[in-house]
């Protein structure tokens, strides 16, 4: 059985002291160990930026892609080898800006992967510019007078893109984070987990305390039914006053992409095992 420590590498994390990434990193290792996954059974893809800096601090197969491209590379790793557990990580800059179409299409394709999006409402590594999740009107390094664009709620993008699992966690609550990560990975189909992650250096508004005063857990709420898409959309709206965390939406009947490919239904092998020379008999006749 894998231990949490098996997921450590020799590299020490170098995030700013107090960064939400520490909780995220620890929770992810914890979740994987609790699920009994061995490091060699897991592939994690990374984006660029502070989120991507986790790449060499977590011992599993990893692919650190380009900025914005953590999702598409992950989708193909999964379809090529369905035996692997594939988790795609990145920040709000990579997943909601540079690569937002990838998120939408991966969701509608319902690949059996988990996307974990660190949302610190800032570009961290490039020293604090505003992103699509920064509240309208807030000043940023490249908008000193306050940004004029509307902000977008990530859970909404996931929901309208037909994601079959949409959840929100908070870096200040690692116990819930581990639960959500496990639920997301176990979900059959595309799961999207947004993690509210204070940036202690460049975001003086959305601090740990700010979040702590506002978040509440859906699992504490009686009668919340995550299979109700409209309700999920509604409850995801509030990111300012009372912020819901937990599983916002889950379609338990979800059929993942690979299982929808009827032409591969009777194949017991994976595309990895199928690499060999194929005879053109049965195909060349069409050219005659």
């Amino acid at each position, binding site marked *: 059985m894998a231990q949490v420590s098996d997921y450590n590498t020799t590299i020490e994390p170098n995030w700013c002291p107090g960064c939400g990434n520490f909780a995220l990193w620890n929770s992810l290792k914890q979740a994987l160990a609790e699920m009994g996954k061995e490091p060699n059974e897991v592939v994690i893809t990374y984006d660029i930026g502070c989120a991507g800096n986790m790449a060499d601090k977590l011992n599993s197969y990893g692919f650190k892609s380009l900025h914005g491209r953590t999702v598409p590379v992950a989708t193909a790793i999964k379809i*090529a080898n369905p035996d692997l557990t594939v988790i795609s990580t990145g920040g709000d800059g990579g997943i909601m800006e540079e690569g937002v179409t990838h998120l939408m299409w991966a969701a509608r394709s319902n690949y059996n992967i988990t996307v974990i999006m660190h949302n610190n409402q800032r570009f961290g590594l490039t020293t604090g510019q505003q992103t699509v999740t920064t509240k309208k009107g807030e000043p940023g390094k490249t908008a000193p007078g306050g940004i004029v664009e509307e902000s977008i709620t990530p859970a909404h993008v996931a929901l309208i893109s037909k994601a079959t699992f949409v959840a929100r966690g908070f870096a200040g609550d690692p116990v819930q984070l581990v639960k959500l990560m496990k639920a997301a990975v176990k979900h059959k189909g595309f799961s999207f987990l947004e993690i509210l992650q204070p940036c202690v250096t460049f975001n003086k508004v959305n601090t740990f305390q700010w979040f702590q005063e506002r978040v509440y857990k859906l699992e504490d709420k009686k009668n919340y039914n995550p299979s109700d898409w409209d309700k999920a959309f509604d409850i995801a709206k509030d990111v300012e006053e009372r912020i819901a965390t937990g599983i916002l939406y889950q379609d338990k009947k979800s059929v993942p992409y690979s299982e929808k490919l009827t032409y591969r239904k009777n194949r017991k092998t994976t595309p990895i095992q199928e690499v060999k020379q194929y005879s053109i008999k049965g195909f060349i006749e069409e050219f005659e």
Partner: protein
Amino acid sequence: MKQSIALKIGGAAGQGVKTAGYILTKALKSLGWWTFSYSEYPSLIRGGHSTFQIDISDEKIHSSNQIVDILVALNEETINLHYEEIAVKGLLLYGKTFEIRPRVQKALEDRKIQLVQLPLEEIVKKNKGLPVMENSVMIGGMWAILTSEYKFLENQVKSIFGKKAKNIETNLACTKGGFDHVRAAVKIHEISSFDLDHKESEDRIIGTGNEVAGLSVYASGCRVYCAYPMTPSTGILQYLAQRTDKTGIIVKQAEDEITAIQMTIGASFAGTRSACGTSGGGLALMTESLALAGITETPLVVFNSQRPGPATGVPTWTEQGDLSFVSRIGHGEFPRIILAPGDIDEVFSLVPEAFNLAEKYQTLVIILLDKYLSESWYQTKKFKDTKIKVQRGQILSRQELASQIDFKRYKFTVSGISPRSLPGSKRGVFLANSDEHDEKGYSTEDLLTRKQMMEKRMRKVQGIMSELPEPKLLGPKNARTTIVCWGSQKGPILDALKDINAGKSKVNMLHYTYVYPVKHETIKRLAGKNKLIAVENNYSAQLAQLIRAETGIEIKSKMTKYVGTPFFRDELVEALKHKV
């Protein structure tokens, strides 16, 4: 060419020009004649003018002539657009109701062109067919000009129309009606060279570059193909998508080219064989990801079927305009291999090689096609199962990994190639990293490691250089003039050389299929004794530029074409006469 006939069919897009041409091409093959079929069409679904030209010969042929012996007009516009292309004493076949302008009429008479009218409507009515069957009448009429051997056409109409058309009998009656009418009307004795006889022939096939690329992708063991549709590369995507029930290949039409290339890289990293296909604009979108494959040393095979740019350019036409772009593609420096097949035989053999090279050197291989090769119908000897075996390069087995204590995926080696592990394998865990990294794959800003890692990757070029073959010298060996060319223009040049040389040894050709890295030896040897002429389907003679940059040899004489069409056989013969 010893004997050749060119027949051009013209009509509005949507009028069935391509179907008619395809049936005729297939029927000609079964009659035992060699063919090459080339089509021109606009970037439109309906309306707009399109043509389909079949060049027929008693020997293998890979090119079109600009001057045609027979023009078949499915509408009046075709006559007005193409009457000047008909050879002296050639033939024009057209619908009885079409009007020919007096000026055109005179020009046709001056050149002694035989006019053959076909009463399309009457023949359809007589056979109780539908208006759409005018096409069948025309097909019968065209065949009648070429040969008296009706049954070869009948068989093709049956096998091609038989699948979809309900009233195949009526269709056949219309075809026969057209055939009989023209047989009676045409003065065959005046154009006896058209009267093709039946020749016994070995097993042959007809296919486009895209279809053969798809077939070869399958034969090579590629199991994931991702692409975003873009003319003229879409044919590969469609070929594979339409056969997944039989092949089981996962064919993914992605939301954009960046996704397509990222998925191709992801699938390859996971350990299967994958590929993607696009055209120049799509490849431009993929460039950052190509550099990612370079630094993560992920095997990657990409088809780029060229069309005239820049930007959207002229989407449905042809050009060899992307060689400069792909030879330097991607930011930073990393090894890459560029292959440019010259015909479908080379497509069939180079694709499996591309996969082997990509896996052996764990780097990018680009296969350059263009609209001409991708979408023209070549005829060749039936392919046998490829002799090129699947060679996956250095992948560590589970047993080999079991003995690893501290696996280093990016180990510094003499060849620059580091054995890889496939995700899932125990003790093989590593990070593929777009950041510069150490031997484990971990990010580094240690500048000595950066230097060593850069040198490790670039060392692979030496292996590639020594492995790739020299360009092929085709034609008479002791000729004193050598045409230097690459990729798809092999066919037109090869065919033109037969006419230029006419049994003598004046001109030969040096054809590059392994375009990059540029080999030095043969070109240096030839530059010392022969006159070199670069013949390229682009503006700047990009291969000549590349040769100069890499070898220092300057090819001063150049013939370039960048109007959207390939080189035509007669055009080349004429132009080269002045150069030789």
